[in-house]
């Protein structure tokens, strides 16, 4: 495989399940979870690459890769269909001497050393496909070069009381990292690692090889590679990122991050023509707001047909809201049909689900219809491809998976 030398390439970690998202990641990896009315989480990282001028990206997939593979395709939605580069989806593979699953984030990159070497890069960025943020990686790379760093870690100021959830970087006045604390009980700083790294490839390669040889290692960037480089006294620097950054790792944070977009001036600007968020286009017509409809404080997308009331909600492309139906404080994913008179209150509804006439999703007095779990924050979650029968009332906080639905014969439901 002969390709052109690249100064920098990116390795995007997209193999995580995101198990705290429960049924939303039963069939797809966390980076493929829909967000913000028309995106999937990974769009933000891929768009960052494109907007930062990084044209070679390896996407490391493992957990439920079907949706993600199909979604990324040849990368044309993000302008990553490039000659001598572009996007490559990299699942674990079998070699002459066996082969194995990705054991950890560092191992995933280790297993693709051959891919990286083919571009002879000076620098390798390691990115996470799990976060919502807009960041110019080229500025971070500039910083990295300016500091003569071996590795640079992007950090984000978090509230002191939340430091225990993050990997914390303690820095000196020159932003050099002097200590790393993984999820500390008592943090010495409040700069959290965003899981965004720039490495000198020579340094990273050696570290990956040594890490792989260590049977005690869990082959993880945060737990092993960064502490190892620190111990070996490599110059590690922290690059402070300011702006919106969010890990939508739980049902509540996913719902909340969507609701954040409904503020008058949200922290995450989706309308910056200089920093577009690219996503495969659904090719749907302009949304149709029928007579008698009302839409307030909401984000609505192409192909939506609204005859009822939508209040403080996010509607993905192709959602139909019937006459007299009410959608409130909810996130409604692609092509959901909410029939006449139905109510959806404080819910996340998965793609292609149909809520029949007069049903009520998120009712205080409702029943635990096929619920596999309960959400403590009172958000009702319906998986994809469900059919909620006419006039059924689903109790607030029910988490309904599509698997439970499939175990029911079709004729018993409708």
């Amino acid at each position, binding site marked *: 495989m002969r390709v052109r030398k690249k100064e920098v390439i990116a390795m995007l970690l997209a193999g995580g399940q995101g198990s705290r998202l429960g049924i939303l990641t039963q069939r797809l990896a966390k980076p493929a979870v829909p967000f913000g009315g028309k995106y999937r989480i990974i769009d933000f990282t891929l768009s960052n690459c494109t907007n930062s001028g990084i044209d070679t990206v390896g996407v490391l997939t493992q957990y439920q890769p079907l949706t993600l593979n199909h979604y990324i395709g040849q990368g044309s939605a993000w302008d990553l269909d490039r000659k001598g580069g572009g996007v490559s989806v990299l699942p674990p593979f079998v070699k002459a001497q066996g082969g194995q699953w990705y054991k950890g984030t560092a191992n995933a990159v280790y297993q693709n050393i051959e891919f990286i070497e083919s571009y002879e890069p000076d620098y390798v960025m390691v990115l996470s496909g799990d976060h919502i943020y807009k960041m110019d990686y080229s500025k971070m790379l500039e910083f990295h070069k300016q500091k003569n760093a071996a590795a640079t870690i992007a950090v984000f100021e978090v509230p002191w009381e939340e430091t225990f959830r993050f990997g914390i970087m303690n820095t000196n006045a020159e932003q050099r990292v002097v200590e790393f604390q993984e999820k500390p009980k008592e943090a010495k700083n409040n700069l959290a690692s965003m899981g965004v790294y720039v490495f000198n490839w020579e340094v990273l390669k050696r570290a990956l090889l040594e890490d792989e040889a260590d049977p005690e290692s869990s082959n993880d960037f945060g737990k092993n590679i960064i502490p190892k480089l620190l111990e070996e006294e490599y110059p590690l620097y922290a690059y402070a990122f300011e702006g919106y950054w969010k890990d939508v790792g739980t049902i509540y944070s996913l719902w909340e991050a969507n609701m954040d977009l409904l503020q008058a001036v949200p922290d995450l600007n989706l309308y910056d023509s200089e920093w577009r968020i690219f996503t495969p286009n659904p090719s749907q017509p*302009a949304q149709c707001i029928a007579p008698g409809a009302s839409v307030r404080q909401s984000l609505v997308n*192409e192909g939506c047909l609204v005859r009822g009331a939508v209040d403080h909600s*996010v509607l993905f492309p192709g959602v139909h809201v019937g006459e007299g139906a009410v959608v409130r404080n909810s996130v409604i994913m692609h092509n959901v049909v909410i029939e006449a008179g139905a109510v959806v209150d404080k819910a996340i509804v998965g793609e292609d689900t149909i809520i029949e006439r007069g049903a009520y999703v998120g009712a205080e007095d409702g029943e635990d219809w096929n619920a596999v779990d309960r959400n403590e924050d009172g958000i009702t979650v319906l998986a994809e491809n469900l059919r909620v029968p006419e006039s059924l009332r689903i109790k607030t906080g029910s988490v309904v998976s599509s698997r439970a639905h499939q175990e029911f014969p079709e004729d018993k439901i409708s």
Partner: protein
Amino acid sequence: MMKDVMAIVNLAENEEQIRDLTPHRSLAAVPFGGRYRLIDFVLSNLVHAGIFKVGVMAQHKFRSLVDHVGSGKEWDLDRYRDGLFLLPPGYTADTDMSVAHRGDIDNFYRNSDFLKMSRQEYVVVTGSSMICAIDYTDVVGFHQEKDADITVVYKQTDLAQDSNQRTMLTLDDEGRVTDILVNPRHTDQDCLSMKMYVIKKQLLMDIVDECDSRGGTDFVKDGLIKNLERLRIYGYRFDGYLAKIDSLRSYYKHSMELLSPDVWGELFYNHGVVYTKIKNEGPAKYVDNANVQNSLVANACIIEGTVENSILFRGVRVRRGAVVRNSIVMQKSLIGENVHLNHAILDKGAEITEGKAISGEDTYPVVIHKEAVV
């Protein structure tokens, strides 16, 4: 097999009565339906039918058209085998704009190499101003079944009465075309030609050659009408929704028809989605006191005011207190605070400053030109 069918989109179209919207673009590039240009509908119909070799015969003012269709990527027409071909008028040292614009036969003639080099046996010839969701596989099937030389698509409709830019057909009981009238002042006919044809490539080239060598300039008048007896010309009846856009009035009328969810559903979903150039815009945003009724809204609009019976293209801003009624507002226009708009068409990037009131009539909408500031 549809791989044996190619298409020519003939943009020799009369723009006289819609000149308010075409000072700097061709009719095919006129924005329509909140996020489309007229040509999107014909290109989408063609690719949905499996026709992947499409030549677009541009006439003039084609910068915005070229910008819009680009390589044809959005229509899946960026291909190694076949694909999209823009065929600009063939200017040479001895021609200029006005001479080049002397009829569509001239355009066909100058592009006869394109036809000759194509391996397809059949050609669909269509314009861009008849907006519908039509299945060309059915039209081609009809053509073969009738063993026709030429098939003309028509619709039985009173749309013919909207303007005298109309080509009317008379058909016999077998569906054979016995008479064609181009732009008659008066007509009792209701078979309106949709200016879409199926013809064998070789026959098309023969007709073009014959017309050109005998001084003919017009495909219908010189190529078809003069050959009504010699050639088996059949009419294919189309029964779906049709918008015939050739005047400001018809543009406004048909735009407003899209507000009916039935028309919206038929045009945009019944025969596959309509492709267009992608802008990667964010969702449309409705703030807390937005009031939107009976309207089409495209992505990236930010609505803080009232919008009724209107069409907003991508990226339109409607500020607080503004009231937009019965209007069409094109891409990236800005409606300032407390502005009142009624029966208005705002071309791209227009700005109406705070407090202004602009009002036209149902039968005569007022047009605010591209990037104008009022």
